[in-house]
């Protein structure tokens, strides 16, 4: 029997047993669906990460206390001014660097109080985050603001609304940390983002010394985190080694563990990628299991079909069907069932992935390969699990088949 004829007959059978065929397909549906969905979501996630990386530049790294080394409540060793100066002076290829502090405070504007989060940023903050923390109005904070202790601030669009209502916040005054600050800039609303430095649309940025004075009083300043941006990736790798050596020599290990962690943006992304890989693997396992279950369902229904249609098999043999014609007919039926299930699954998977990408604001990247692989797997399942029932059908002799009473 040629394939075209086999397919035509398969559709006759499908039409006659719509509900049963659909139910039988469910396992294949779900298997291919999860395969396609996770592939597209994975691709889109990576596309999204790529976009994020491009936004910040992947030449970013930061150093902070290695929390793993410390017991709960144990005081962390923090960088001091000398360390930060040393890194700024000596690391080759360094373009920008910033430290920052974060505190909650109570702000008063137009006679009304409001709790706000203050971000005490250092000189280069707005350079490094130029893409993700754009200035919509006015200006960013400048090195001079800190040097001359100017009481100015840059406000997020949301907190600006809370503090000043519909009025233009530019040039308005708001009081916190015991003095009045003038608003010199407003940031643009933030796009959805994967990496965050802790700021958002409710943040108020102020020159760092005001916040440091509140935290440390007269004591020596310490830095919880230092964020650096280099001109190129080799410089980042070089900096990692030099900083780790420097910090280990100066502060030593704590119970065999490093006191600081030097993290590249790359590594950070890598960790996210690893999480994605684990999730993908889990989904693939689920997909494989449902394909297997689906395949067994197909085998079961094909065995039922062969039994139900024994008379038909006998008639076909009586009019000239050879064993291999019967074999290929039932094999084609199983494959058509699986492929149809695969198509439905792939379509649903793509739709689910598209919805997920829209909700997460990720770029939707269609994966044709996953659809092709999904359909190939469905075909293979059809052949694998259809073979036994089809073989059973083909082993009948015409007389046996015709004599069977159904």
């Amino acid at each position, binding site marked *: *029997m*040629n394939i*075209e*004829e086999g397919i035509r007959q398969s559709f*006759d*059978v499908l*039409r*006659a047993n719509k509900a049963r065929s659909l139910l039988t397909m469910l396992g294949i549906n779900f298997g291919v669906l999860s395969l396609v969905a996770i592939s597209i979501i994975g691709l889109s996630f990576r596309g999204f990460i790529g976009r994020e990386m491009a936004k910040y530049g992947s030449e970013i790294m930061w150093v902070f206390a290695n929390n793993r080394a410390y017991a709960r409540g144990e005081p962390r060793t923090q960088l001091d001014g000398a360390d930060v100066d040393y890194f700024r002076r000596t690391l080759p290829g360094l373009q920008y660097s910033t430290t920052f502090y974060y505190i909650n405070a109570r702000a008063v504007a137009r006679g009304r109080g409001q709790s706000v989060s203050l971000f005490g940023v250092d000189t280069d903050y707005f350079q490094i985050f130029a893409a993700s923390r754009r200035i919509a109005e006015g200006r960013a904070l400048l090195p001079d603001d800190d040097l001359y202790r100017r009481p100015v601030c840059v406000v997020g669009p949301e907190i600006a609304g809370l503090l000043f209502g519909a009025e233009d916040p530019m040039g308005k005054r708001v009081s916190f940390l015991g003095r009045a600050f003038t608003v010199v800039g407003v940031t643009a609303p933030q796009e959805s983002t994967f990496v965050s430095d802790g700021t958002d649309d409710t943040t108020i940025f102020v020159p760092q010394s005001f916040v440091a004075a509140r935290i440390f009083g007269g004591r020596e300043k310490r830095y919880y985190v230092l964020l650096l941006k280099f001109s190129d990736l080799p410089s980042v790798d070089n900096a990692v080694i030099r900083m780790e050596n420097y910090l280990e020599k100066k502060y030593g290990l704590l119970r065999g563990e490093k006191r600081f962690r030097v993290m590249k943006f790359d590594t950070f992304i890598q960790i996210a990628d690893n999480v994605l890989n684990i999730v993908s693997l889990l989904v693939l396992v689920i997909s494989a299991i449902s394909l297997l279950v689906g395949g067994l369902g197909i085998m079961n229904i094909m065995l039922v079909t062969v039994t139900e249609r024994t*008379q*038909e098999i*006998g*008639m*076909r*043999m*009586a*009019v*000239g*069907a*050879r*064993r*291999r*014609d019967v074999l290929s007919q039932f094999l084609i039926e199983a494959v058509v069932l699986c492929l149809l299930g695969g198509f439905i699954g792939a379509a649903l998977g793509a739709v689910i992935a598209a919805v997920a990408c829209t909700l997460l604001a990720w770029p939707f990247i269609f994966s044709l390969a996953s659809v092709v692989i999904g359909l190939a797997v469905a075909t293979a399942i059809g052949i694998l699990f259809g073979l036994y029932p089809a073989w059973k059908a083909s082993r009948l*002799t*015409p*007389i046996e088949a*015709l004599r069977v009473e159904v």
Partner: protein
Amino acid sequence: MSLIRLRGIGKVYELGLARVTALKGVDLEVGDREFVTVMGASGSGKSTLMNIIGCLDRPSSGVYELDGRDVSRLTDSELAAIRNRKVGFVFQTFNLLPRVPSWRNVELPLVYSRVPAAERRTRAFAALGRVDLADRALHRPNELSGGQRQRVAIARALVNHPSIIFADEPTGNLDSRTGLSIMALFQRLHGEGATIIMVTHEMDIALHARRIIYLKDGRITGDERIKKPKHADKELSKMADLEEDELTEAIEKHS
């Protein structure tokens, strides 16, 4: 030369320990363009014999030559090819695919001889024309009467121009009038040159053939030519006349 030549054909069914001997040394010759009826009591081996002659089954012993060729030693697919091209089967229970239109039932033998789709369709419609069902080509079997279904099955048996048509109790599931119309069709096909071998229980039906073979306990015990076969068309027109008469007259005539 005979179309069919059986020499000492035996058939034994093995059922575990029990053995059933269905045929015991059957010798038979059937020539081209014959119209033969096989009769005999239930269990006498009629179907077994038909299945062997029709290459649906193999004999346990003996030699069977079809068209001068020994078919008792052929492989499964060689037998399938013979069933496809040389033989046309008509079953008591029609054996049609219920969900596809008549013409697609009729084209099936052509599917297995790899005839291109367009030609299959033309030939299927032509075969339906020969059994006067051209106007039912697109109907599915469940939209047809029993007699019409059997005619679709006969068209299927005819479509690949076989040398012989086999019919195992073709009228067994039909009322006598419809049975007669099938006999009329067989007689017409026979007149057009077909070789027909048919099994039946009913003498009324058997007498439409030209030769009757009688089977008893797996042996041929009678083989006679029919000098004056019944003419199905005439019987049918008589029945039609009867229908046109008044019912009371008809009752009087028959009592």
